[in-house]
């Protein structure tokens, strides 16, 4: 190997220090927000003069916050289900299909990941305004499904590529119809990919803010939109509490994913 970690000498310490700095840079803001959400200062003073749970009480007592969280969860769940279903069908055709323009189709389906979100947001907002879907749950779900699709297709297609098609053929020789073979053998075999796809597409929608700001109406707000709105109105520790909950749920989902992947891949 060109760079052998064991033979780096003093560079090893430098590398470790550099890594620690970057990690701190990425994590510290999150840590501060979580700490501030438990601080008793109304003005987000740091270090906090005392510790309290009252911002969380205030958050949970406010129906606008609770509703925003439920809306977020509902939209993210629907977007995740749709993205996984479409992602499954798309992956089969991208991995197994032999047709002209397959690479083009793959590129098209993955575009939402590389396209600047604001460009996508403006485009779909303008389109939805015309057909009357702006500010509706359906509009929200469609827009987020499109954004989540790459996150569903990548893990499913990867799992399908790693699955030996001979196993499916064996199921068919055993007497299973091609559809039965796919449902009973292929899908369970690539379940880690499907599961990752569900989690990642849920998260893609759950913490999405740009498209959500365009799509939101006064009566339909997701949690990130509500946070954004509250920040502009008044800087209250309730926002820190809401943010902490958002981070907490994301973290939980990531941990569950990691644990399940480990168990399933045994």
């Amino acid at each position, binding site marked *: 190997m060109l760079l052998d970690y064991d033979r780096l000498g003093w560079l090893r310490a430098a590398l470790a220090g550099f890594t620690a700095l970057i990690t701190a840079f990425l994590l510290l803001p999150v840590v501060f927000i979580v700490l501030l959400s438990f601080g008793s200062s109304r003005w987000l003073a740091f270090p906090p003069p005392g510790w309290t749970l009252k911002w969380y009480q205030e958050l949970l007592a406010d129906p606008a916050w609770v509703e925003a969280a439920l809306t977020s969860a509902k939209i993210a769940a629907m977007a995740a289900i749709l993205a996984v279903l479409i992602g499954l069908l798309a992956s089969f055709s991208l991995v197994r299909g032999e047709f002209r323009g397959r690479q083009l189709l793959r590129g098209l389906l993955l575009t939402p990941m590389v396209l600047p979100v604001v460009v996508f947001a403006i485009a779909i907002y303008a389109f939805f305004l015309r057909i009357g879907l702006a500010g509706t749950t359906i509009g929200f779900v469609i827009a987020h499904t499109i954004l989540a699709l790459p996150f569903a297709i990548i893990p499913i297609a990867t799992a399908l590529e790693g699955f030996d098609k*001979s196993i499916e053929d064996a199921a068919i020789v*055993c*007497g299973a119809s*091609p559809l039965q073979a796919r449902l009973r053998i292929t899908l369970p075999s690539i379940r880690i990919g499907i599961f990752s796809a569900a989690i990642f597409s849920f998260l893609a929608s759950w913490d999405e803010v740009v498209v959500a700001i365009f799509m939101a109406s006064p009566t339909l707000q997701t949690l990130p939109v509500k946070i954004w709105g509250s920040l502009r109105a008044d800087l209250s520790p309730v926002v820190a509490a809401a943010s902490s909950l958002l981070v907490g749920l994301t973290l939980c989902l990531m941990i569950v994913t990691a644990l399940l992947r480990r168990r399933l891949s045994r």
Partner: protein
Amino acid sequence: MTRPFLSIRAVRKAFGAFVAVHDVTIDVPKGEFLTFLGPSGSGKSTTLYAIAGFQDPTSGDVLLEDKSLLSVPSHKRNIGMVFQRYTLFPHLSVAENVAFPLRVRRRPDAEVKRKVADMLALVRLEKFADRYPGALSGGQQQRVALARALAYDPPILLMDEPLSALDKKLRQEIQAEIRRIHRETGVTVLYVTHDQEEALHLSDRIALFKEGRIEQIGTGEDLYLRPASEFVAGFIGNSNFLPAEHLETENGVALVRLADGSLVKGVKATQALGRGQKARLMVRPEAFRLTPMEGNASLAVEIVDTAFFGDRRRVVARTGSGDEIDVRPTSDTAEPGGTDAASGRQIFFDPTTAFLFPV
């Protein structure tokens, strides 16, 4: 005329301009173990896939008990198959893998349970019923695959190089298992391999494929002792091919002149050859002797190298015309005169075990 159990009739498979299988015709009696042997790309697997239904032949037909299989989709052909790759269902236990074909056939639970137990006993893996495929060795996985393929009592079992991923010792062990299972179940087996030893060990008959055609079909002894062509002689067993010139043939017995000028009479001619036609004389390495017997032909050689293998010696000899030949006399016949490297030696062979092929 008795109708054959399985009849492969003029099956042809073309991929564009490339013809992978040229009008292959074989009749297989019930209970036979027939092996398709041949180098890779010789059309043996393609023929098997046509029977399994993974590939539609361009023309021809496959009949099982007089009924065409070609219009039946793969999953309704009721054929058993073991693949080259490991194809156990990774998320199901060994027992559930074997049960799968019975479950899709909606057999009652009690029957499924009994059959699974029988099949696991057949492949001697009763203790592994609750394991998952990931916890099995390659050999065990292929035995479970065999149990799964036989669980629904298919009339035909197809095996596509099932042992090619295993090491040599394990291959031989499982070959013995396959022989026993074939004997115990009486199932008709079509087996594909490129390994001639495996084919000889397992088969009732061997169909040797070359470039999409069957070069020769017969028992292992037929192919070894009576090869129809130089290709067969070269593929089955070890062979020496000595450049020769055909002088004359009388009653199927030929007189030839070898490249070093020596004459050999009493050779079997496989095909009619013209006077003076260039040919190759095939002699098996074990047909050579170091001491002459009645009627033997002799060959003046220089012994280049010799090695001892317990039951055999392997001697590398060079003829007067510079051709290296492989000589494997049994150990006891090797003793007189020794086999140390030396020039001016004579070795001997029975000309009736040699074959003459046109070039």
